């Protein structure tokens, strides 16, 4: 029987990218990070992260190994939450390249432009105020970041920067242009996974 102490298993798509940085944040929040490289790795996951990396590379390799279809199946199939016992869609969070892939695979109704924030010279850190996430400032990094050009009606914009959406949600799918994990920031992951999965 799962207890209050049951660790939720959050997968991190581990084709390449900043997998270890996401894993470190999940461990701080008492989740169990699980590297996902094959279709079998999707078994028994309570949530999933698509990390930062090169979206063209990750997308291609996902198709070669059938992981694109597996991700779509995973994202759209309700599963039992081991803590609440309820059936619900698994929570998925994409950062940067992950945002691009979620939109590309039709899991997030948004139009994205790759590298629209510029080259590495234009990469930046900033502090965000997102009251629905935390009363404190949130540190994030935009690294060769993609821009959300527009979102569909069913997409909720959770945060904007300079008037442009940067953090969005469509049902169980969360996505951000930025990286909280690069700066060791836990609040975004906590908001997404702790509240949405254990509530």
């Amino acid at each position, binding site marked *: 029987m799962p207890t209050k102490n049951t660790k939720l298993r959050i997968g991190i798509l*581990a*084709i*390449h*990218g*900043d*997998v*270890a*940085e996401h894993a470190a944040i999940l461990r701080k929040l008492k989740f169990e990070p699980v590297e996902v*490289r094959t279709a079998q790795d999707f078994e028994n996951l309570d949530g999933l992260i698509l990390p*930062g*990396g*090169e979206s*063209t*590379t990750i997308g*291609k*390799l996902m198709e*070669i190994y059938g992981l694109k279809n597996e991700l779509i199946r995973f994202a759209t199939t309700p599963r039992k939450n081991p803590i609440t016992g309820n059936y619900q869609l698994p929570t998925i969070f994409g950062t*940067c*390249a992950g945002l691009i892939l979620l939109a590309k695979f039709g899991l997030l109704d948004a139009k994205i432009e*790759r*590298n629209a924030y510029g*080259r*590495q*010279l*234009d*990469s*930046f*850190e*900033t*502090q*965000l*105020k997102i009251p629905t996430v935390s009363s404190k400032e949130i540190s994030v*990094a935009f*690294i*060769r970041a993609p821009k959300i050009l527009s979102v569909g009606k069913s997409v909720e914009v959770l945060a904007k*920067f300079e008037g442009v959406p940067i953090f969005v949600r469509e049902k169980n799918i969360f996505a951000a242009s930025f*990286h909280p994990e*690069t*700066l060791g920031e836990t609040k975004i992951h906590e908001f997404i996974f702790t509240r949405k999965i254990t509530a």
Partner: protein
Amino acid sequence: MEKKTATPRLKKGLAEMLKGGVIMDVVNPAQAVIAEKAGAVAVMALERVPSDIRKDGGVARMSDPKMIRGIQKAVTIPVMAKVRIGHFVEAQILEALAVDYIDESEVLTPADEQFHVDKSKFQVPFVCGATNLGEAARRIAEGAAMIRTKGEAGTGNVVEAVRHIRTINAEIAALQKMSPAAVKKYATEIRTPLALVEEIRKLGRLPVVNFAAGGVATPADAALLMQLGCDGVFVGSGIFKSKNPAKMARAIVLATMNFRDAKILAQVSEGLGEAMKGLEISTLTTKLAGRGW
């Protein structure tokens, strides 16, 4: 809200996004497109791959900016380019081109026998080669945001890259067993700030991403270096000097992703045609790894 650019964390951050991936040397836009299609996470733009530099001899310098721009236009993945050791003006030029990473590389002919580039002064992040922990630590102290083994570039012989990563691993393991007094002495010996040495000791690894480079010629070579603990792989001459570059490039990408899965490694190693012709290290007249200190 305030935007901060070119912080050490951002410089290191881009390399973190490349982990588990393959960075390929390319000499023109067409090769860059092949590399991107095969699944490279970045390309290194240079005029001649190391094996040709070795063959042609003479002074090897930064590439023509026109050629670098052509490659930047051809692909959407990050573009890196090389400067000579210590040649900070070549680095200024590459920064003006807005390349995503600068490689201060022993593959080119060194420009300064005393000083490496002061990398902390630049907005663009740097990657530097290392053959041991002291060298890696000195480069990080100078501002390098990513390290790679030197290996012996342009040989298709992986033995030097293996030596370098094994040396770094062994030196970190030894550091972790040292008494506080010995750590202090070691920091002085390797001419590195104590705080950085303490950080390496605490982490049990370099505080920046560490790729393999130099002599990688097959998918098995890439997987070997990944199993030895490298975070990713640079492939220079190994791809475009092989019989079938597109196929070899894809195979090395798949091997790097699945470096622990021998079945997949066997599949991707099949029917690749001839790998680049390798060179025995003892027969070399110029050893590139000895450049820099």
